[in-house]
């Protein structure tokens, strides 16, 4: 076991986060189906389909939406391998494992009994486990495709024009912008601590190192926020936030929106 394994995991987490961001940027610039649509339509449409997923009561309907989601992904040049790695396998490993005991402990008619282990799997158990996993997979596929195909600034502007308060949108924007700066700062701090540490640290020492890094990061963050505040004041900020929204709906957007809503409603109706 590496002596700095806890640092390694954290550092890897940072790398993954930045990689995800770059992945997003790349996919958003592809000439695919979703990319052609107004971001507001994409956001509303995706949300509508996810709501449909949780309204459906039947496996078949949810599976149908999953197929639709995959089709949209392919049409929008989102790599299925990326989806598999980022969404499908992760969820199988997480929700899949969570759902496993449900096979055994959900009351209902037994499908399969193992007399040796005194365990039986009920039909209801199977259904509920599959339902859960399918729902989670489908919803996550939809949101991931949205996130991959849409630039962050467009998501923000879509939220703003859907009447989310300007302050909230500004805070989301600013937070996102500074997340990467702080990731880099934290990365540097951990790297330098890693290289300066000789020998194996005790548990208490490692805790202190982590907490201290967090503390330094906090001080820098507050200082950063104070400087940003001054910079905002210097450019005329007086408390009100003014944003530029320049979206115009084209005919294809209406078509897209209708398609999303229709699919959602159909699935819910058939899956009731």
């Amino acid at each position, binding site marked *: 076991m590496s002596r700095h394994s*806890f640092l390694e995991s954290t550092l890897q987490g940072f790398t993954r986060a930045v990689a995800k961001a770059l992945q997003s940027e790349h996919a958003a610039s592809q000439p695919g189906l979703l990319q052609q649509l107004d971001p507001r339509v994409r956001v509303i449409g995706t949300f509508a389909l996810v709501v449909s997923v949780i309204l459906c009561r039947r496996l078949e309907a949810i599976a149908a939406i999953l197929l639709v989601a995959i089709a949209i992904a392919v049409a929008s040049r989102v790599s299925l391998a990326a989806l598999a790695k980022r969404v499908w396998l992760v969820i199988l490993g997480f929700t899949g494992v969570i759902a496993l005991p449900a096979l055994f402990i959900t*009351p209902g008619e037994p499908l399969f009994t193992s007399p040796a282990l005194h365990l039986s799997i009920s*039909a209801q158990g199977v259904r509920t486990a599959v339902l859960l996993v399918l*729902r989670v997979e489908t919803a996550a596929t939809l949101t991931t495709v949205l*996130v991959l195909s849409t630039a962050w600034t467009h998501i923000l502007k879509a939220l703003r024009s859907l009447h989310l308060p300007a302050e909230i949108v500004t805070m989301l924007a600013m937070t996102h912008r500074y997340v990467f700066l702080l990731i880099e700062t934290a990365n540097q701090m951990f790297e330098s601590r890693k290289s300066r540490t000789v020998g194996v640290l005790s548990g208490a020492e490692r805790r*202190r190192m*982590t907490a201290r890094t967090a503390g330094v990061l906090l*001080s820098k963050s507050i200082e950063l926020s104070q400087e940003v505040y001054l910079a905002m004041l210097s450019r005329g900020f007086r408390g009100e936030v003014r944003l530029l929204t320049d979206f115009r709906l084209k005919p294809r957007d209406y078509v897209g929106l209708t398609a999303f809503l229709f699919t959602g409603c159909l699935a819910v109706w058939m899956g009731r």
Partner: protein
Amino acid sequence: MLSRGPTYNNAPVEIDEIMHIPDGYLSPSTCGTLYLFAAWGWYAALKRIKQLLATRAIPLISVFAAFSFVVMMFNVPLPGGTTGHAVGVGVAAIVLGPWGSILAISIALAIQALFFGDGGITTLGANCFNMAIVGSFTAYVVYRTIATNSNLKSRQRVVAAAVAGYVAINASALVTAVELGIQPMLFHDASGTPLYAPYPLHVAIPAMMIGHLTLAGLAEAVISAGMVSYLQRADLGLLRGVSGLGQTPGTIIAGASPERSQGRLWWAVALLMLFTPLGILAAGTAWGEWSSADLMNPHTREQIAAASGNHAPPSSVPVGIERLSTLWTAPFPGYAPGFIKSPVFGYLLSAMFGVGFLVLASLLGRAVGRKWPGGNLRS
């Protein structure tokens, strides 16, 4: 050993400590209700923070949200050689006060869901309610109660921070567990299949609490205590909280108005009380929450059959239920203290107890905030 397992929130998954509920675990009505609760929290927090910090609010909350996002990615080494993840709600409540903390943590969660695609979008309201709102208030109240008016540099503050972080995470976990646990009872199809989260309360609660009482709670305690300790040496001003942070030229700090926010709190409590009798939906025993005894009693077996689309329950107690039923004995077994026969009354009583607890917590928060001025909020 470098774990190459599945990742969630850019960190290797440790199953027992995930509190971010993905889409699909909660029914639409649960999601909607919790979104409403969360929206109330966000609205109230935004108003209060604008009062307290005026123009300073936007950069401060944003950068703090970025900070807590990054802290959520830290692997915190724990006693015993394992690692856990903190949320940062302890530090946020201490430095920003509960309202600022609600906003900062909510924004971090929103970025996770909307930009990184981690965490559900229908469950964002629920996650914010559980972690940002319940977590922040709990952390704040516990911290102020234990820290009292002690010297900013005292050990008492560090201990207060540790306990506050620990209790806050476990409170969040409990609320999450309850939300998940009531799903099978309320939302199932005719054959008895749970439609969303499949585990009833007496499974969900121990399952979630064990992971958080041990790992996540400790991680939060370590980070909260460690950071307060660091700030005591390096940046004392931050421990003074929001009133200290507002000191910048051009900031207009209006007086806070406690009366109006109290009125809203009572409304929220009233609403909650209205919702709790939902537990009395099922006649007799709640569906799914059968004890082993219920399954053996012929009378209740008939009831169960009737409630389950006329499918007879298994003739012997499923081993799973047998095993798990001993794990958790609710303080009110069968939700009714011995002398009360009627289950309806039992539900009412439990509801009262739960709500009373909440009211107590908020009253405590108000009293604590008033009694020790110079704290984070002038309320």
